[in-house]
């Protein structure tokens, strides 16, 4: 994990220290550390001259700004209607079996976190999932197996 203070300074240099810089900075922290910790939020507040509550308020509003530790690869399976109709359950089951965790959990080696999410915008090719920022659509058990096997090797 990157040291939070230096990371925040780096991000603040890039995005500025305005209130409107807050979201890009939080997004930068989550992308580097996979979550934003309480200490990190306090540090951001100091850097941008905001109250910790303001930072906390924004951070906890957005579902992609994780405020608890996540694995290196966060898997988000779409659970909205058309993906659900086209076999989302099987996809989640396959992932749970392969990773030996339930939805909402992280593998003990901190490599994978499995989550469900709302509409990802791949309704015509459902079921779909995101692994970090990369979308995968038209999923089948076999396809999921291949994708995850590749990530396990990484």
């Amino acid at each position, binding site marked *: 994990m990157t040291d939070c203070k230096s990371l925040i300074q780096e991000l603040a240099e890039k995005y500025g220290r*305005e209130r409107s810089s807050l979201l890009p900075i939080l997004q930068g922290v989550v992308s580097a550390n996979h979550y934003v910790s309480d200490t990190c939020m306090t540090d951001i507040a100091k850097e941008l001259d905001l109250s910790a509550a*303001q930072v906390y308020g924004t951070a906890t509003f957005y579902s992609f700004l994780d405020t608890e530790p996540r694995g290196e690869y966060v898997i988000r399976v779409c659970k909205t209607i*058309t993906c659900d109709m086209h076999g989302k359950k099987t996809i989640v089951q396959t992932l749970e079996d392969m990773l030996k965790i339930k939805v909402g959990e992280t593998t003990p080696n901190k490599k994978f976190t499995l989550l469900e999410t709302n*509409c990802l915008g791949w309704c*015509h090719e459902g079921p779909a999932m995101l692994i970090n920022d990369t979308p995968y659509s038209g999923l089948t058990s076999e396809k999921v197996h291949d994708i995850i096997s590749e990530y396990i090797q990484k």
Partner: protein
Amino acid sequence: MSEQTLKRVDLIFGEYSNEKYKVLATTLERTNEEILQELLDSGLRGRGGAGFPTAMKWKYTAETPGDEKYVVCNADEGEPGTFKDREILYRVPRKVFSGMAICGKVIGAKKGYMYLRGEYKFMVPELVKELAIYHEHAKKLGFDFTIEIRMGSGAYICGEESALFESMEGGRGEPRNKPPYPTTSGFMKKPTVINNVETFVNVLMIMRLGPDQYRKLGTTDSRGSKVFSVSGDTPIPGIYELELGMPLDKFVDEFGDGDTKAVQVGGASGFCVPRKKFKDTVIGFEGVPTGGSMMIFNSSRSMYNVLHNYLEFFEEESCGQCTPCRVGCQQLLKGIVAVKKGEKKAIYLDQLMKLSESMKITAKCGLGQSVANSFSSIVNNFKEEMIY
């Protein structure tokens, strides 16, 4: 109702002009009055779903005094069943940037933002490359209008324009009270035009074709074409550009699997149309409007499960700011589960309908107000499925 059929169009996704940013260059030579008049004549209405006349939005913003104004492109496409903006940004980003730049000229803004949903972050590298090309051309044309991409982070509500501004300003994505409208107080409380991705492309096409040719597409109330996102029980899911004002039965003939029971028009916040009403339903502002989402359900689907899925979606995506929406979504979900389990009598559905109607009147923004659309259209048309 006039006899309309299904007509495929190739306006939005049509090829670029052979010279990069040619239409933008010629449009920049024209007066703002001319551009606004053409937009007005074209009859263009916003493509995000609400359908506000684009020319009026631009005119009001242009008329609001102030040196600092903004153009925002709403690419926070989150409505279930919608994926057309992603396709537009993937295939014709140049048209979107041109549309934004034209808006910048008309209202006198120097800065534009594209608010892209977090789920589409994978598109950023390509968009940044395209933006560099845009900025190069804008510089050559001596036109001072820059565009920056801002990312969302997984919140449906940020597609609501004032919530989107709050998010861009670094806050929670909670909608503001209206008025004031964005035309006077938008991003950073400055006059702002915020339009959907597809709307900006339509603007460019009107500038290229002229309003007369554009008006030939569609009906009196719904001019032009529309990009539809077709999904669900269909052998041919995908993106289709069709003329507005088509009857739903023609749509089902083309896209259904022969066993279509219902079509959800406009996503989870839109209306569910049952088979018996296909013939009398027109897709457009005069009938059932849509931001493009068309989800098809066949007779193997339980409409209870469909509604349950929508309500879970709304319950999670409600920002929680106003009570009607926060509590209403929870209670509607709990209510249909209780009726299904037999814990409440069927007549309880009437209570829930009243609740959804109250939400329509009292919720602060479009999210809470539109839950009643799908709720009442599903409960009314498929009551047995809710109970047994």
